[in-house]
């Protein structure tokens, strides 16, 4: 026979084959399913991130139930505002309105957040120096937040 001293080659081939199998097994175990399908990342991450819970319901959802107050707001100066600007995230409220109430903010704190005079604000935006404008009187005494024009 020509390769009569080939036993060491067979043994070597066996070691290589075992190494390859081990490598493929480890690779299969640690590389996530579908990795590389869309790019150098796990495509399942897109679904995971898209499935995160929503906290802000959106104004159309609010207006579906609160159509009367929405009508007042949408005819006034605050028409462009979403309800959740002032009332906070309301997705939980839409699921269970009795269990989860929305914020009813204090006008004295909330109104000045946007309307306190600040040189950095655009000149056309309505703003007042609240101390001079009203002293300690709450904004809501004169202006109704849903339709603030006097």
């Amino acid at each position, binding site marked *: 026979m020509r390769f009569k001293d080939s036993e060491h080659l067979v043994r070597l081939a066996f070691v290589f084959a075992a190494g390859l199998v081990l490598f493929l097994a480890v690779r299969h175990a640690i590389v*996530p399913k579908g*990795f590389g399908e*869309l*790019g*150098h*990342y*796990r495509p399942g*991450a*897109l679904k*995971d*991130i*898209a*499935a*995160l*819970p*929503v*906290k*802000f319901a*959106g*104004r159309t959802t609010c207006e579906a139930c609160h159509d009367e107050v929405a009508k007042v707001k949408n005819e006034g100066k605050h028409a*462009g*505002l*979403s309800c*959740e*600007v002032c009332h*906070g*995230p309301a997705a939980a409220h839409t699921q269970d309105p009795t269990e989860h109430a929305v914020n009813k903010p204090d006008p004295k704190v909330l109104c000045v*957040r*946007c309307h*306190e*005079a*600040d*040189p*950095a*604000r*655009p000149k056309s*935006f309505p703003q007042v120096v609240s101390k001079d404008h009203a002293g300690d009187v709450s904004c809501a005494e004169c202006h109704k937040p849903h339709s603030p024009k006097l």
Partner: protein
Amino acid sequence: MEVTRREALETAGKFIILSGAARVAFNELHGEPVADPEKYTAAEHWWGMTIDIDKCIGCGKCVEACAAENGVPDGYFRTWIERYRVADNEPDNPHVDSPNGGKDGFPVLNDMPDAKSFFVPKLCNHCADSPCVQACPVGATFESPDGVVLVDQTYCIGCRYCIQACPYGCRYLDPRKNVVDKCTLCYHRITKGLVTACVEVCPTSSRQLADLKNPKDPVHKFMRENHVEVLKPHLATGAKVFYKDMDEAVR
């Protein structure tokens, strides 16, 4: 009967034209197909944002809403607002402040009465050629097919290379999970047909979500008719947050 090559081509042509006409007629009768959130197709969108600096009043409601929507820990920001004050003799040296990212609003400052002063909202620019994605050694951060830069938090090893790579400072290491976190452009909302939390609450509509692949999106008119810039254009990151009327002092 022998069908000539000419006849076969004519018949095929008529069939194609008629089936096209039938499809148009069907769409006319049934209206536009309504987008089904269950059938969101990433390839049909290319997301970005437009910001009108002249409309931003610095109320910080966007920062607050972002934190509430995404559970951002205190002291960390996926979006924040900077107040610029530029003295007319020092246009290259703006005074910038951002107390708590603008989350609680800005205290009124009157010590530079003659300075040019304005607010600049910032967030991840969702770059098309993101330096952060190129830096990630494990493939945990990526550009989605619809143009949003995301982090796979189950895969991130917390090495922080991407935080260093981002030229806009938009990433942070979440101290609770020791993995990187950043603006997802509210991916869980935009894939359901909602706008991002910051856009939802912006009282002056300074921020607008933009779908650059949608020919009906107002973003196209916005880009055409205004002076629009991105931050650090010389870095060629393909940034997709477009600022209208941005002062050259903004970095």
